[in-house]
């Protein structure tokens, strides 16, 4: 397990108190598993806990990742139905979603016992990504803004991983911010001046950021 010493700086600080339920981060995501939804719409999804939310950039449908799987709304959140997840994936506890905004067919998801899974058909079917993650507990994903085949993943109790090839392989790149309880990642298009962009992390102790180039 390699560790590269990124420099994380706090963009905000505040008092942290314990929360009961885990409720994890959201990322932008495209894709529409509408054809896989089979149940009648309900006003509220039967969630354990909501973890992540996504807007389909082509149709505007919403995809909700929860402790009990994925849910779909075709009417801006007024009603929901469970989205069947086709394909062989190791779990249903979806903690994070991310999208390749240049190719709306390509979606990524991570979660507990799920690792990182990928869809190339707008969420209709999913398959595990390649090797390299130390555990299957992925709490956050972020797609690089200008190179969408590059993603970062936060593995709970472990660290930050990166793939250069859309999930073909993963490499551990950093321990992460000072507070390791990362709940979400984001990569706005903010150049570092060293050829990369910043990675932002939301934690139980504030927002941190680090350059992704090292």
């Amino acid at each position, binding site marked *: 397990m390699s560790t590269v010493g990124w420099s994380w*700086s*706090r*963009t*905000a*600080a*505040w*008092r*942290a*108190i314990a*929360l009961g*339920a885990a*409720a*994890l*981060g*959201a*990322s*932008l*995501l*495209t894709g529409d598993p509408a054809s896989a939804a089979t149940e009648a719409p309900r*006003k*509220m*999804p039967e*969630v354990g*806990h*909501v*973890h*992540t*939310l*996504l*807007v389909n*950039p082509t149709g*505007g449908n*919403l995809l*909700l*990742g*929860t402790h009990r799987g994925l849910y779909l*709304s075709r009417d*801006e*959140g*007024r*009603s*929901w139905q469970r989205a069947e997840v086709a394909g062989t994936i190791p779990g249903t506890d979806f903690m994070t979603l991310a999208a390749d*905004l240049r190719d709306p067919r390509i979606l990524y998801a991570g979660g507990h016992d799920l690792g990182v899974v990928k869809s190339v058909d707008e969420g209709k079917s999913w398959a595990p990504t390649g090797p390299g993650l130390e555990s299957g507990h992925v709490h956050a994903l972020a797609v690089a*803004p200008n190179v969408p085949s590059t993603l970062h993943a936060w593995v709970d109790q472990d660290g930050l991983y990166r793939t250069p090839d859309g999930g073909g392989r993963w490499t551990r790149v950093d321990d992460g911010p000072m507070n390791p*309880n990362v*709940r*979400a*990642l*984001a*990569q*706005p*298009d*903010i150049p570092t001046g060293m050829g990369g962009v910043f990675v*932002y992390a*939301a*934690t*139980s102790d*504030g*927002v941190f*950021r680090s350059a992704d180039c090292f």
Partner: protein
Amino acid sequence: MGRVPTTTTLTTLVADRSDPNVLFTASRDGVFKTTDRGLRWQAVNRGLDGAAIAALAIDPRNPKVLFAASDQGMIFKTTDGGASWRRQN
């Protein structure tokens, strides 16, 4: 750097792809927005009715439109970049 005006764990973080200065985060205390890359954060909670927010998503077709989900599945929508929210379900 400024402080996010919350006392609880941040649950989500999303970036406005049309303006890299703008990010949103959230917690049990609501939604927070920065327009200066994280230097300063302000609450943007009008209409959220005290909901604990677990997830946010920006509509990439119109980044002024965001959706917020509470941890138990209430959905809120803003069409003005978080200035006001309306419950959807």
